[in-house]
């Protein structure tokens, strides 16, 4: 699954692809391939971030039983 892909590795790959596209005049097919892979990586990374954010929200929600954006600050003030 997408979740299994290491996020940092995907980001690195994406960056590398962008650099490759930026640096050189790649043939159309190769450029297309790179672009496709880049978009996919971008989507994977985005998805991963979505999941992570969701998880964070759930975790914070779990703890309080209800959603709280700043969970601890409010308690002792």
């Amino acid at each position, binding site marked *: 699954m997408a979740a299994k892909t290491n996020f940092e590795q995907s980001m690195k790959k994406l960056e590398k692809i962008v650099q490759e596209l930026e640096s050189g005049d790649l043939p159309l097919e190769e450029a297309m391939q790179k672009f496709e892979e880049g978009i996919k990586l*971008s989507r994977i990374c985005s998805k991963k971030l979505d999941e992570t954010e969701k998880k964070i929200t759930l975790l914070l929600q779990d703890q309080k039983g209800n959603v709280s954006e700043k969970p601890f600050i409010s308690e002792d003030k």
Partner: protein
Amino acid sequence: MTIEKHHNIYTVSQLNSEIKFLLEDSFPFIWISGEISNCKMPGSGHLYFTLKDENSQISCVMFRGQNQKLKFELEDGLSITGLGRISLYEPRGTYQLIFEFLEPKGIGALQIAFEQLKDRLTSEGLFDDKYKRPLPFLPQKISLITSPTGAVVHDILKIIDRRFPNLFIEIVPVKVQGENSEKEIVQALELLSTLNDTDIIIMARGGGSLEDLSAFNSENVARAVFSTKIPVVSAIGHETDFTISDFVADLRAPTPSAAAELVVPSKDELKRRQEDIFSKLKSNIWQYIEKHRYILAQVSKSLVDPKRKVQDLRLKIDDLTNRLTRIFLNSINQKHEQFKLWNDLLFINKPLSYIANLNEKLANNTDKLTTLNTIYLNNKRSLIRENKGRLYALNPTAILKRGYSITRTIPGADIVKTAHSVSIGQNLEVMLAKGLLAVNVQKITDSS
């Protein structure tokens, strides 16, 4: 005094030293009575005076530690009895009495007996601190050896009731003076010791003369107190009254009331103390919990939630994706432009111009071809026409126009040159200048 006659020559110091030894060894403690004179108390707080009788006098001192315990004021002319020891002050060769105890004179033999017993018991160790038992902090049963009547028992009970209402108090009634009192007290002590079911014994009696207190100064009572297994508090007489029982008891209370106070703690105080400490315990445990909750909250608050990181990464991804797309689209556009250029050029250079050229050339040739054809045919035709004209001009029948005619046979078309070459009735044709005649030979004339 006789020692001076010996041959031995002493130094003053040696002599004084030996005298000091002799004196102090011979009179470790003596009871002495006499009249006070020349009484002084310098700044040191030690009491200096002279004790005299009708014939003699002796220098005396009572050090501050002891004289503070005096229950009366020393003054010149007062007759006293005291307990002291002889001491020689070597540097000056003077001797003096160092008093430990002083009291006004007149107690007499009882007092001496008292002191003697006290000395004996002291040397036996009955008063040693090592035998003093600690009192129970909170006794549950208190045995009171006293007279069941009178103010003493009443006071004690009142105080105990006030301090700790729910205590078991057992009164062992005894005579506290007079005949049998000593025996009863001893019996009471022995009984309690035997029963051994009480936490503490209070021996109590109100104040009185030395005689009144004699039971409590008896050796039997002292030994009974000493051998009791249960801690004993003596509360005999007033604050200034000391008895042997006081010395041998585990604790001496100055008065019976004081004994009650000493033996029985205040329940209210204890309760308060217990409650205080209990509430402190509670408050401490809650504080402990609160403290740890606070620490936990602080630490938990510092638990950085990675949302910020997620947002940063989102921005980065967006940036990368934008760059990716922009670059890629640019490159595609470039390729598209390039393609369009070549495509346009291809269209511009489509071979239609070839066709136009070739068409023109072809048309040229084709025109030429047809023109040549026409010319050729016209040439031929005119040649024919010319020949035809010339032919017609040479037409042998041209003489007919001048009136000649040509006769020819039918058929055969042989020209008839002679008449007899024909026969009558033969059909002939006559060519005229214009037209033909068909004739029938009717007559033949031979001109020859």
